[in-house]
């Protein structure tokens, strides 16, 4: 089974608006998600300069799905849903 790819934007705006709290995301993963998720830091996803995406910090799942105003809680909840196969 392919791993779920989670990209955390580490650009200036994202980092200052909360991505700093996502740096230890890997350690926060619940037991059932370990080994199923690949967390990556990206230098900048270049989403902050686009309007109407909801605001930094941004996290991207599986190259397509964007989460705005990401917090560890929101990201972990979404990872759990993806692991459990909920769309």
């Amino acid at each position, binding site marked *: 089974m392919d791993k779920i790819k989670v990209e*955390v*934007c*580490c*650009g*200036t*705006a994202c*980092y*200052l*608006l909360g*991505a*700093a709290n996502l*740096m*230890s995301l*890997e*350690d926060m993963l619940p037991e059932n998600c370990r080994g199923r998720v690949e*967390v*990556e*830091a*990206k*230098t*900048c*996803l*270049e989403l*902050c*300069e686009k309007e109407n995406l909801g*605001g*930094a910090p941004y996290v991207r799942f599986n190259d397509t799905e964007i989460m705005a105003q990401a917090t560890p809680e929101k990201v972990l909840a979404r990872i759990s849903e993806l692991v459990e196969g909920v769309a």
Partner: protein
Amino acid sequence: MADDLFIEMEAAQYTKTGQGACGDDVRFMTVEKENRHLVALSDGLGSGVKANVLATMTTSMAIKFLESNVPMLEAVEIIMDSLPICEVRKIGYATFSLFDFRLGGKARISEMGNPGYIHLRGTEEIAPLKDEQIASSHWPDREVRECEADFRAGDRIIMCSDGVTQSGLGVRKDMKFGWRRSGVLKFAQEKIAADPDISARDLSAAIAREALFLTPGGCKDDISCVVCYLRRPRVMRVLTGPPFYKDHDADYARKATLGFDHVVICGGTTANIMERELGVKVKVKLSDMKSSGGLPPVGTMEGVGIATEGILTLGRVLSALEQMRPPEREPAAARAILERMMRHDRIEFVIGTKVNESHQDPNIPQDLELRRSVVKRMCAALEKNYRKKVTVDYY
């Protein structure tokens, strides 16, 4: 030819254990318009604050006299007449070593009371072209040694305080008279044989560290070692910010092809331009993500250089440069940039001038300085505090 050369001048010091201030002082000066480079090293009588005052007065005056081409003997007499007299010893005294070099010319070394300087070409010791002792009529017990040296590209000159040559004295049975000048010479030759390109920074640090190591149980005297190394400059490039015109991206990215150890890319958008133009991905190790110490993590672009976040990281680097904080204590990304800066002689900034609109977001909880002003202050600190050559190009 002389324009292609750079003189790296560095010092390493340890303070006598138990003292709050170092009794040795080292001062550097570059006289740009004369392409001239000066160093003064002084060891003040005694230790602690009193010695520090004597040494600092001596280096400050000596370097000014050197700059103004005051004859050495006259300078020494003025310095001696000015130093405060020690209540205990009834004398005012500080030894010194002075180095005066004009690119394309000869080096002049003047010494009083300090261990004799060492001149190395590779591992071979080079004798001075001229070597004279000058006595003062004023201070008959003080003699100044004046030397002229044929200082060529690839040569090194090492100057120490007696805390280096006397390390190990009275502690080690195999060093009855301490490490001595001969021991320092042999150690430096071995270091250069093992690493022919060893920088002045690394060699001075290695000599000072060895002197400390030879004296177990703490530093018995202030230790100072200065190394001057004449060589072709080591160039690094810092690329930061996207170019104002997008069609300049390719040109801009080509500036990053200088070799992995010599390139730093600062900024997420800048890194993305490099990824696109050079076809190399930025990789961030997960462990680096967790231990980034309050700044976004540092990544690597294989064959290109390191990639960091932009303005927060540069701001941190700036404050370390301005306050001369050692790189080891900085967060990973700032440390990586600072260490590279310390290893290079000429630092070329290539700045994209496009403003990142997302940084103007009022929700961002701190002031973000403009890239250009941060780089401008960084250049000033690199030149003034670290004697680096700096250039800035805008895109």
